[in-house]
């Protein structure tokens, strides 16, 4: 059983390194700040430090997989596994230091999901992974299981280790919370292309497209759950602005249409005559 446990560490460690790298890269590219041990380095170096860590994880994950079989067996495999152990050992020490110096900071191990303050569980996880990487040094090249019993043993070993890792991972709770929660439409980021796609698939578009001069919108703006898209058009020989209001709840949601004479307008607010609007609004 011990031999099986040692064998499954290599793909598991590689998967964890790839997962951590992807989460960090997404977070570092999408957000302005970084978290984890990089929070201890100067502000301008944090993003480069996060990306460097991410690249290291990717390289180590790839090295572990490439040296897992007969190709690369021996010294290359041992070197990759020792480097992985060094990385996890360093991470455990850095997290311990981070916990002392910045108790409010998250570990950043899995990007945005790792925003909860560093706990003993996270440090224990890094230590466990360090031990797991050390245990793989000297393991012979991986091969497919010889028998059904061997396959079941391998699966049981993987499942047991995953249970331990889940128990040591506060990120699981965050991930489940995010999966089970959907923001209301007014709080959801919705790309314009998706709005245009929903509009083009709607019955309103098919009905009114013929009145448009061009299908390139002249104005697009958003107010909560609605995004407004304006096109120049001609209706009953009059130039008009055709405005489509697309609800952002998802595909198949309602699309409303309105038309306004192109000339219809009122003075812009800064040029309007003065009166006493605050007094009026105070009544509300």
């Amino acid at each position, binding site marked *: 059983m011990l031999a099986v446990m040692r064998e499954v560490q290599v793909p598991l460690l590689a998967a964890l390194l790839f997962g951590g790298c992807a989460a960090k890269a997404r977070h570092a590219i999408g*957000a*302005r*700040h970084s*978290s984890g041990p990089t*929070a201890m380095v*100067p*502000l301008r170096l944090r993003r480069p430090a996060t990306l460097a860590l991410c690249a290291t994880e990717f390289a180590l994950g790839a090295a572990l997989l490439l040296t897992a079989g007969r190709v690369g067996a021996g010294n290359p495999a041992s070197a990759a596994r020792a480097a992985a152990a060094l990385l996890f050992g360093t991470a455990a020490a850095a997290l311990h230091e981070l916990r002392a110096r910045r108790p*409010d*900071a998250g570990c950043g191990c899995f990007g945005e999901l790792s*925003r909860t303050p560093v706990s003993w569980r996270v440090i224990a996880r890094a230590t466990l992974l360090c031990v797991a990487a050390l245990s793989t040094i000297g393991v012979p090249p991986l091969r497919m299981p010889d028998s059904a019993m061997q396959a079941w043993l391998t699966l049981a070993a993987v499942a047991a280790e995953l249970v331990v890792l889940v128990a040591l991972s506060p990120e699981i709770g965050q991930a489940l*919370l995010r999966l089970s*929660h959907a*923001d*209301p439409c*007014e*709080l*959801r*980021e*919705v*790309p*314009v292309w998706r709005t245009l796609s929903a509009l083009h698939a709607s019955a309103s578009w098919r009905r009114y497209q013929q009145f448009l001069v061009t299908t390139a919108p002249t*104005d*697009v*703006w*958003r*107010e*909560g*759950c*609605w995004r*407004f898209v*304006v096109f120049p058009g001609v209706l009953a020989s009059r130039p008009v*602005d055709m*405005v489509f*209001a697309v609800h952002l709840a998802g595909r198949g949601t309602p699309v*409303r*249409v*309105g*038309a*306004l004479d192109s000339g*219809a*307008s*009122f*003075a*812009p*607010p*800064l*040029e*309007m*005559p*003065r009166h*006493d*609007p*605050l007094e*009026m*609004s*105070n009544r*509300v």
Partner: protein
Amino acid sequence: MPESGTSARFARRALLRAAVFETQDQELWADRPATAATVATGVLAEVRGDEIAVYSERGTEFFGVSPATVTWLGARASPSALRPGDPVIVRHLKVGAAAPARKHAERIWARAGRVTGTIVAADGLEFLVDTGRDDRSPQRVVIPSASSRQIQVRFPRLAPGYLLDVIGTRHGDHLLAVAPATAQPPYHAGHSPGPPLVGGPVPMPISGSAVWHEPDDEPPGLLGLAYPAIDPEGGAQPADGGTGCVRLPYLSLGATVRIRNECTERAAVLPVTGDGTMAREFCDRCVECGTSPKGRVADLTMAAFVELGGNLEDGCFNATLRTMAS
């Protein structure tokens, strides 16, 4: 936003929206102030015994001053301390039909300034602060020794990466900070806590803190607000790091919101004229009248803040905000 073409385009959006939803937006736009009714922004032209003259976009305006007039020049001061050339903002009593030519100054702020942002460099008590401006040029803040104790009590970490929000007086290219505008968040810039998860529609109105900012590229007397949740696809600055610690519906520039000062019970419908980058960074409360919920819901222009009854030296007022979005 300052360009009249852009302004007209935003104004037309209300008409277009009304064409779809048959709402009263057009009336709301008509109701909103063209220019401030009780606020004058300009440069001090002259100080006489019982009167000051201010050059503003409406020409030279005269305001009566009395012992009841409160003057602020870094601290309470006498109107005689003001000097011609000082940038001022005056809140005056409404003009009565009986005396339309004479306005009485209720409060005068001279050289008032505020810097809200992330410290990028520190040299003793001099700082460069990134305020999130488009050109990323930092602003210079100097804390005089007389004010350092008061400020450091509320901003203990005056180091790069931490947030700063101070009020003071403008002197050339720098702000002479005289008071903290809030307490320093314990986190680094960019690490503000996320808003609570909301299961259903955002409840209206939304309560929080309303703060003010100095005009950057905006006209000095502009009535508007920087909104913390600008639609990232709206052609404006991308929403960097969500919407701060308040759940706010996404809006585009030019959308209108109704904002109410809960301390003075004054309200107005104002356009969104900017991206409230820094409002997203702070998760603080305003305690001007009771304790507001956490988070900044609006970063008003100086004129709008004063028009709604806020006092610049206080830094904030308890506010409720209602969007026009359905």
